[in-house]
């Protein structure tokens, strides 16, 4: 047994750290440090920087432009990216549609799409959820009917992140009503400027606009945009669910936010002393440390399993549950730490380039919006209740 990264891994980590430090543009760093939200141009600029370095798609095979990393290197890269102030590239391009095309796309599709994902020219979004199919994805009802060499798509998607930025969507549609729900689903690639597509923004409780509803009215999609075989869409979607889950607990994110919380607790004065020196609050902080340390070991055990080529299966659900609980608890404790200065909400202050200054100490900016936003962690990607159902079935064989 050995708890340490190898010499090579440590050297690799140093290389990544140096890169982050030297290549992250100063204005992006400032956005993160002010608790503001990245916009499209920031993500794209950063993606292009990663592309230049050859690190745009950590999990792709070398022949398609991937770096050829081991699972541990991928983990280290994700971790360092998460610990830095860099934008975390949305997963839809390199993390999701890329691997699907590499596994199931035809040559024409690979040639057309992969380079533009890699270099950040195309922004993709994901068309899975529908209003009546949340946890029960297979019940989706967006319909695609073949009309000569086009599919005609009608229906609606919801919770589509960044649809307002997207050039293309990969989309699950029902192409066959006569078979059991999972068997009638196909996987289509849709240009977002195709006539018949309309967007409606969903404003979330932190007053931000990330999510959208997407409506399809007689949207014509060329048949060449079908991935793999018709009726196999469910298989491809499930392939993605099993993919790249080793960072699912977002330990790097929790490390960053716990570090931030400790700084807040050291700066906030309570009864004449730093809040961090209040013995009960100090125990809360340390308890968060404990949770983080233990979760990281569980993460390492999983990574070692992955490295050994084993199925990481149920363990990913543990990381999802405990990781989301930890992120939410850190955030909840941060809300407690900033006291009354959690109340002010100046929308402009969390927008990059906004002129309004935040109210109260700088460290309070964004704490409440983060808390509100992070409630999503136990909902999206399968609620924590669904994760427990999965564990009951897979790990405990109920």
């Amino acid at each position, binding site marked *: 047994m050995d708890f340490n990264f190898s010499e090579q891994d440590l050297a690799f980590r140093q290389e990544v750290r140096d890169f982050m430090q030297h290549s992250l543009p100063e204005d992006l760093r400032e956005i993160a440090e002010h608790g503001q939200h990245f916009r499209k141009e920031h993500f794209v600029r950063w993606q292009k920087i990663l592309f230049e370095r050859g690190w745009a798609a950590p999990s792709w095979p070398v022949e398609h432009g991937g770096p050829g990393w081991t699972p541990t290197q991928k983990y280290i890269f994700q971790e360092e990216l998460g610990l830095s102030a860099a934008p975390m590239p949305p997963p839809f391009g390199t993390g999701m549609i890329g691997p699907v095309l590499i596994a199931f796309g035809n040559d024409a599709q690979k040639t057309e799409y992969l380079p533009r994902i890699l270099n950040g020219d195309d922004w993709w979004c994901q068309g899975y959820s529908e209003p009546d199919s949340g946890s029960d994805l297979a*019940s989706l009802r967006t319909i695609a009917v073949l009309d000569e060499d086009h599919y005609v798509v009608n229906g609606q998607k919801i919770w589509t992140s960044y649809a307002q930025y997207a050039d293309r969507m990969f989309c699950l549609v029902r192409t066959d009503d006569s078979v059991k729900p999972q068997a009638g689903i196909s996987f289509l690639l849709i240009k977002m400027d195709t006539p018949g597509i309309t967007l409606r923004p969903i404003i979330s409780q932190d007053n931000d606009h990330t999510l959208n509803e997407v409506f399809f009215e007689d949207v014509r999609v060329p048949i060449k945009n079908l991935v793999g075989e018709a009726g196999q869409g469910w298989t491809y979607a499930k392939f993605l669910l099993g993919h790249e889950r080793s960072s699912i607990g977002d330990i790097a994110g929790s490390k960053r936010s716990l570090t931030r919380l400790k700084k807040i607790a050291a700066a906030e004065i309570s009864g*004449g002393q730093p809040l961090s020196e209040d013995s009960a609050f100090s125990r809360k902080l340390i308890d968060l440390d404990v949770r983080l340390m233990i979760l990281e070991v569980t993460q390492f055990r999983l990574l070692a399993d992955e490295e050994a080529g084993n199925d990481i299966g149920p363990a990913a659900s543990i990381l999802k549950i405990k990781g989301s609980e930890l992120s939410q608890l850190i955030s909840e404790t941060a809300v407690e730490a900033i006291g009354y200065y959690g109340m002010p909400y100046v929308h402009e202050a969390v927008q990059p380039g906004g002129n309004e200054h935040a109210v109260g100490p700088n460290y309070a900016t964004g704490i409440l919006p983060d808390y*509100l936003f992070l*409630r999503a962690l136990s909902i999206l990607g399968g609620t924590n209740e669904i994760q427990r159902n999965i564990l009951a079935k897979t790990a405990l064989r109920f």
Partner: protein
Amino acid sequence: MDFTLNEEQQLLKNSAERFVEQDYGFERRRDIIASPDGFDREVWAQMAELGWLGLPFSEEDGGYDGTPVETMILMEAIGCGLMVEPYLATVVLGGGLIAACGNADQKATILPQLIAGKMLLALAYAEPQSRFDPADIITTATKDGGGYLLNGHKAVVLNGGSADKIIFSARTSGDQRDQGGISLFIIDADAAGLKIKSYPTIDGLRAAEIELTNVAAEALGKIDDAYPAIEVVLDAGIAAIAAEAVGAMQVLHDDTLEYLKTRQQFGQAIGSFQVLQHRMVDIYIELEQARSAAVMATLRLTENDPEARCHALSAAKVQIGQASRFVGQNAVQLHGGIGMTDELKISHYFKRLTMITTQFGSADYHLDRMASATPQTNQEEI
């Protein structure tokens, strides 16, 4: 022992609930929040007309001689409707201090106006460094002829931007965090040297940062000895938001239960899943316990022994905070993604409940306050 409402209280409850239901729809509230004042002066006038603004004041001050129970009833309705009108700031906090500490002249100038809906108040007690301790004051008041000059910074003053008069706590003697040496002052909002920066809060209300530079002020109550009165009025604030929280939680409870019974997934209502049923039961239990806390807070407010009052009010605040967090978070969780949208009511109630958790002090603050308060009356003597 009797937990029923008397006839007038029942009428008040019915009327307040009807008002919220008929006249304070959620879309109207959305418009009101977006308006320049952040609340609706027409609604305020209606509240005055209905007699609500005079409830807690004595008849000689022009009020209706109500008890804390009437305030509880009204605040619960306010919580149900998530009303943003400045009842807490003007009537409970500001009005409460005028009634408790004002001289005859101050009462006569302010209370009838307030009750008529013509004057808004705010209470500026917290400071950037004070956290939850209302005795942690560095704003100074120095004698200047017959009056005082105030200098300092007051933080997160609820409805500070729309108040006509603002009550300030300031230090006239003693050291930072001494409970002695604190005095109250009343200042017109347009006084020279007052800089008021108003802003929206995350829960749809308005608050303000106020800087004071040599602001001339009139004393309210005895110099150096205001802390007990401030504590009483903040305890009244706790009782008020406890009731508000109960109203808000009731809405989350009802809406979530309804959602569980109607939302279909996997071919059945999601409320058929036992895990979600039990979570809903825990929401129900927390709500019932919060109701007990609000009742305790209300009935203990008039307790003669200050330590017993502190003890009970802090205990109520601890429970209300925990219940608010649990019910808010789980109402969102059980709704799933839709619970996080601005469009649904759920997220707005969640946000208000989140802020109630820290408003007037966090659970830890109140646990410590209880530890230092030793009720003279035997605990069992309730």
